[in-house]
């Protein structure tokens, strides 16, 4: 009951913030786009014509390839802009709980600090997951109805997006409980997202870096930090070719998230309010 109350409270607060409505609105726009503006005529398993804003183009592509391409586009949107918006929107949800006059009342209730912070964390993950499910499921149904292709592979995007958001949110929570600053939480988390594709160039950097210690440093950074870029790539590969690999990226990112969340709980347990 207490966990549910904490999750509901996070939902209420998220809905009171306009940024979450922007996220939801963008997903709705995308669904409406596929619903009304994209017309696909299919003849014997290939797209006969694709109509967009009244412009027709003849297509002889395989429908399955086209649908997977759309899935990939949506997954890329979720991974880039969607993830940034989600981090930006979530950054204030932890510092707001720590505001003087609010935190004392929460701490006066018969629940542990761990329970309080994890309830908030879980609520925040669920808010973003719900939006991801809404977009993915909406597009999947529309494309399924229009093309007759009901490929469940698109749902990989829900799992990977939720997973990497949960990892990044652990950083947001740690910075939130340590510095109580939404701006700092956003900056640090976005920085992690930005350096991810740079760190992913490990093979290239091993050739370019001259000294052993710098190569070791690069490798360490690569393994320690969450692999946002690679998980995006894994998602795209899964959607477009049906192969799912790169488990190292998953477990190292998971370890990073667990370490961040554990540290956040440790800091939160020891703070005076």
């Amino acid at each position: 009951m207490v966990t549910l109350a904490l999750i509901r409270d996070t939902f209420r607060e998220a809905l009171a913030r306009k940024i979450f409505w922007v996220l939801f609105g963008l997903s709705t726009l995308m669904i409406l786009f596929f619903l009304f503006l994209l017309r696909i005529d299919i003849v014997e398993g290939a797209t006969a014509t694709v109509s967009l804003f009244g412009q027709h183009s003849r297509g002889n592509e395989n429908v399955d390839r086209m649908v997977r391409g759309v899935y990939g586009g949506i997954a890329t949107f979720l991974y880039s802009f969607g993830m940034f918006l989600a981090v930006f929107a979530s950054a204030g949800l932890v510092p707001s709980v720590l505001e003087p006059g609010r935190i004392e009342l929460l701490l006066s209730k018969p629940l542990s600090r761990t329970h309080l912070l994890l309830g908030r964390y879980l609520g925040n993950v669920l808010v973003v997951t719900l939006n991801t499910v809404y977009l993915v499921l909406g597009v999947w149904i529309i494309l399924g109805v229009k093309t007759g292709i009901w490929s469940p592979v698109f749902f990989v995007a829900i799992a990977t997006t939720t997973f990497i958001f949960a990892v990044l949110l652990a950083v947001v929570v740690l910075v939130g409980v340590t510095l109580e600053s939404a701006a700092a939480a956003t900056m640090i988390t976005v920085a992690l997202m930005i350096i991810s594709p740079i760190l992913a160039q490990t093979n290239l950097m091993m050739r370019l870096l001259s000294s052993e210690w710098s190569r070791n440093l690069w490798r360490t950074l690569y393994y320690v930090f969450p692999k946002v870029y690679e998980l995006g790539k894994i998602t795209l590969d899964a959607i477009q070719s049906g192969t799912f690999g790169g488990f190292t990226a998953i477990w190292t990112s998971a370890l990073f998230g667990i370490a961040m969340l554990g540290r956040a709980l440790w800091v939160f347990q020891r703070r005076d309010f």
Partner: protein
Amino acid sequence: MVEDVIRIYVLLSYDGRSHECLRHNVHAGNKHPAFLRILVRVNPVPADSEYAIQTQDLTKIYRTRWTGREVRAIDGVSLRVPKGTIFGLLGPNGAGKTTFVKTLLSAVRPNHGSALIFGRNASDPAARRPIGYLPENHRFPTYFTGAGMLDFYASLSGVSAAQRKKLIPEQLELVGLSQWGEMRIGKYSKGMLQRLGLAQALIHSPSILILDEPTDGVDPVGRREIREILGRCESQGVTIFVNSHLLAEIETLCREIAILHKGKVALSGKMQDLTAGKGYRLTVTKPSDALTEELRARATSLAVRDGMIDLQFSTRELVNAALDLLRAQHCEVESLMPTTSTLEEVFVRTVEKK
């Protein structure tokens, strides 16, 4: 060896569950001497303590970030608040009142000493189950409606959905907000928020109310209503712990008080004992300004309210002389009564002496 193992367990998981484990062992009849020694050390008072609040040598030291200079917010505070009483905590600004209250709620971790709520260590989440708390300068999330806010905090206190459905309208009615329950609290006035905060503190039928400036921002009628609510709580056996700057309010409400000064208990005891002392309070219709000034010179205190003045005199001779002056000008006497020392006098004496 056994003692070491238990001690390590207690230190590692000092979050309440260890208490439950220890208590379970007691009920299960564990009489191992090492276990009993640990139990006494961790929780020196049994759960059925006669005190609602009991602190022993409670100390909180803050250190400045760069210089490391120590500030003792509370310094060895030992207090006992008996069950069912209304207890007032007083002190000048910076005396450590809020830090003391926060240690009771485990929002602040003491460096030394213990704080027990009905015999349970305050750091144990279960110890906070019987607490209803109204913070000073509360900041309730503005996205809530009044009813929604009560629902949320009652859920955290373990009130079931069925009970909440029944209790929320009752509590809103109790604090005079039944018309405003569905309105967002961002639109509430300060006084309305205070009433809602009180309803939040009461909704789970707590055994102890900890109130930080409970009538702050509330109009006089509202203050009287809050006092009546607290009076009803007292008659039901609820312990009330009030932290307030308003001495008159503490004097009206509380049976026992403690005055904190520079982080230490400067004075504590029953109100009637602490305010014992001779004096007379005279209430009359407001006389001319000239006579008011003359009376002010003779009285130890003078307060003007609603066309009346309250005068405090230290001796019978002085009050009789004042009566002669007032009657000569045909002023009407509302009341005259012997008084004890006012709480304000006790407070000022205590703080200035230290």
